[in-house]
């Protein structure tokens, strides 16, 4: 799980162009949206693409998004549970 969390942090920085942010600055339990990393709705779409492109996971129910993308840790847990 730790390896996946590190990998996800790197992918998020790259996919969302967070160039002024280092991996260590992202706490895996920190909220990605709102007061946390301050991501926006376009970033949410990028994360959905990232999950499908890099892990082959398609989110069928958009309502799940809020829980899946709450934090890096919640993303990693979802990937671990759903990757084939």
């Amino acid at each position, binding site marked *: 799980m730790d390896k996946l969390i590190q990998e996800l942090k790197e992918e998020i920085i790259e996919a*969302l162009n*967070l160039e002024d942010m280092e991996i260590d600055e992202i706490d895996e339990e920190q909220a990605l949206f709102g007061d946390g990393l*301050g991501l926006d709705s376009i970033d949410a779409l990028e994360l959905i693409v990232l999950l499908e492109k890099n892990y082959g996971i398609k989110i069928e129910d958009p309502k799940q998004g809020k829980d899946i993308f709450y934090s890096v840790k919640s993303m990693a847990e979802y990937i671990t549970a759903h990757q084939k």
Partner: protein
Amino acid sequence: MSTLKHVYLSNSSLFVNNKLVLRGENPIFAKFLKEVYLYNLSRYPKFYKMDALSKLAFVASEVLLKDYKHKHQAEEVGIILQNKSSTIIVDKKHQASISNREEYFPSPANFVYTLPNVMTGEICIRNGFKGENAVFIVPGFDAAFLMNYLQILFDNDKTKMMLGGFVDAGEDYYEAFMFIIDEQNYKEIQADQLYNLYKELKENAETS
């Protein structure tokens, strides 16, 4: 023309009011934009998410508006820009992401920048401007068209200050010419003078 504050960026050079203030260390467009951003401008993390064209317009506007004091209302300030190549850089990226059915992963972050007027939107969001804003696609900087349009806006008394200019970028070229014009000086500025200023800056950047 002495009252017109202006900036010009091209060929790794940044001019403010005809004076070379930054000569980029890196000839690569993206790296030069980052150099300008880091050059004495306030931190704005969204800069990194913009496409190259918006970054170019954004840094030009930041340099232009730095230390520029005015008391106009948000609705009285607008931006009218011209551009030749639309959003060709990000258009090509988007095209590449959808050209293969097996690897069909269009990027939402790229797609939202496939309209050139997004660059004026970014500047308006940053500065809270709510006046007229538009981008016109033209074959090259058209000072007569732009000045005519700006004069109509000033004459309707709703507009007090405008950012105007020409911002264009492709894979191996880029330039931004941007100026501030207001209700005090707009009648003094003739289109041919503005065009000559642009030509002079362009030549200076090419030989700097």
